[in-house]
């Protein structure tokens, strides 16, 4: 029995001698919904990566500030009547220099002390006329943990007007501020991730809704649920990775660009201010690794959302 005479005028492109092949993927490629999903995944990955980078940056800057401050202590020598302040400062600096674990001691000169007070007392200050204490900054050797209590006692014996300030209060304040900034960043990151998961999930559901016929036909011709879910999961993992690499890649490129720019402007005043705040403005290997993990996680979320949606769709058929 033949029905060739029923073939309509509309014919396919002639394929002389060619054998047909099953090359089309079961889940269609390049659909509008698929492209929209890639765009959403890319945008959300970009935002999540920026937030991750910002959290890493804040954490690293706070840690730098803390270690910078913690590596120094200050010796304050008060002016006392009947004592030579300069001699006391020199003696205190000498004691500190000989103390184990001290790398360097820098005594602030009278002029430098005047400049420190300029913001409050104005220029042209004659420091000798005021009972202003003199400062010596003690820099601690890398890895050393000097006993500041012992240093304080040694100074008290030989220079009674000297006192050691190990910045403990300030460091504690910095630490809690840094912790608060880091936790705040983590909270924002969690919100961004939640928004990412939700938007990617809904976009995936939308994309699968356009493939409802494919799911239904596969189901009715006897495809097992795992077969259908596997095909959709694989396709959507691909879409998720595509979007994730675009979004995450843009974020990584942006971080790398800013890092390069900050190095370039390091000598300038603005660059110095920037460096003072953010250090080298590098998210480091940890930050870059976190962005790569973000790409993988978001692609995984896309794949899992597709599997779940397909399974739910299949449940409605039974």
């Amino acid at each position, binding site marked *: 029995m033949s*029905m060739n005479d029923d073939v309509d005028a509309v014919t*396919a492109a002639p394929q002389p001698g060619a054998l047909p092949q*099953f090359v089309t993927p079961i889940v*269609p490629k390049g659909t509008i919904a698929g492209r929209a999903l890639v765009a959403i995944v890319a945008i959300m990955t970009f935002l999540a990566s920026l937030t991750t980078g910002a959290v890493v940056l804040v954490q690293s800057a706070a840690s730098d500030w803390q270690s910078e401050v913690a590596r120094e202590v200050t010796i304050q020598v008060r002016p006392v009547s009947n004592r030579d302040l300069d001699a006391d400062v020199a003696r205190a600096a000498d004691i500190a220099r000989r103390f184990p674990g001290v790398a360097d001691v820098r005594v602030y000169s009278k002029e430098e002390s005047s400049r420190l007070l300029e913001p409050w007392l104005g220029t042209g200050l004659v420091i000798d006329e005021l009972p202003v204490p003199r400062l010596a900054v003690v820099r601690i050797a890398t890895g050393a943990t000097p006993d500041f209590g012992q240093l304080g006692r040694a100074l008290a014996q030989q220079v009674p007007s000297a006192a050691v300030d190990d910045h403990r209060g300030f460091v504690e304040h910095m630490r809690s501020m840094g912790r608060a900034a880091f936790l705040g960043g983590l909270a924002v990151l969690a919100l961004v991730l939640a928004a990412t998961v939700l938007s990617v999930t809904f976009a995936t559901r939308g994309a699968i809704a356009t493939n409802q016929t494919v799911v239904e036909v596969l189901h*009715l011709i006897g495809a097992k649920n795992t077969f259908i879910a596997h095909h959709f999961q694989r396709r959507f993992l691909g879409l998720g990775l595509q979007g994730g690499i675009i979004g995450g890649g843009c974020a990584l490129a942006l971080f790398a660009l800013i890092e390069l720019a900050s190095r370039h402007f390091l000598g300038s005043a603005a660059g110095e201010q920037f460096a003072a705040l953010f250090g080298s403005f590098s998210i480091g290997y940890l930050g870059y690794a976190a962005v790569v993990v973000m790409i993988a996680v978001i692609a995984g979320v896309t794949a899992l959302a597709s599997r779940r949606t397909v399974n739910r769709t299949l449940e409605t058929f039974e």
Partner: protein
Amino acid sequence: MVRFENVGLRYGLGPEVLRDLSFRIEPHSFQFLTGPSGAGKTSLMRLLFLALRPTRGLITLFGHDIATLGKDALATLRRRIGVVFQDFRLIDHMTTYENVALPLRVVGQEEASFRDEVVELLQWVGLGERMWALPPVLSGGEKQRAAIARAVIARPQLLLADEPTGNVDPNLGQRLLRLFVELNKSGTSIVIATHDIALMDQYDARRLVLHEGRLHVYE
């Protein structure tokens, strides 16, 4: 092959659309399922191709009580049933060849093992020149034949066709009926849901008539 015993079906909390259906479909049999619009033909077809579960009664398919089967076992049973949908349900992004080969693909067969068979079937139904065409550019008749080819490619034991002549002219309708008769002669049980009396008059076969949710069988 198929046994219904006191089967009832309702959607949600609505009234029963199918009531106390008891009948059998024997191997190598041919039957028309008919009745007025809204009588429940499509619902009964959906029960037959396991797209619905009954709200009461017993359905036995190929010796299995479907109520006791899991999802994978039901999928395996569906492979023994070919379905021709009224609206064809071809997958638009796949060529005619791929649509027809799909049931073999989902069971994991290698393309080399089924390519010749699919090509031969497509030529047999008159679509040899349309293997590379996508469904949106096929005519109604071509879609119908592609849907039939897809339904029979895996040599099902039971073929269910829902209004297979609803979208074609009477001449093509006759040809399709001849195709179903040929398939039946080769051992497939056929159920054709239709309200086309002219079609049923062309072939002397058992008639299952649905009326207000109840089934009357005319041997």
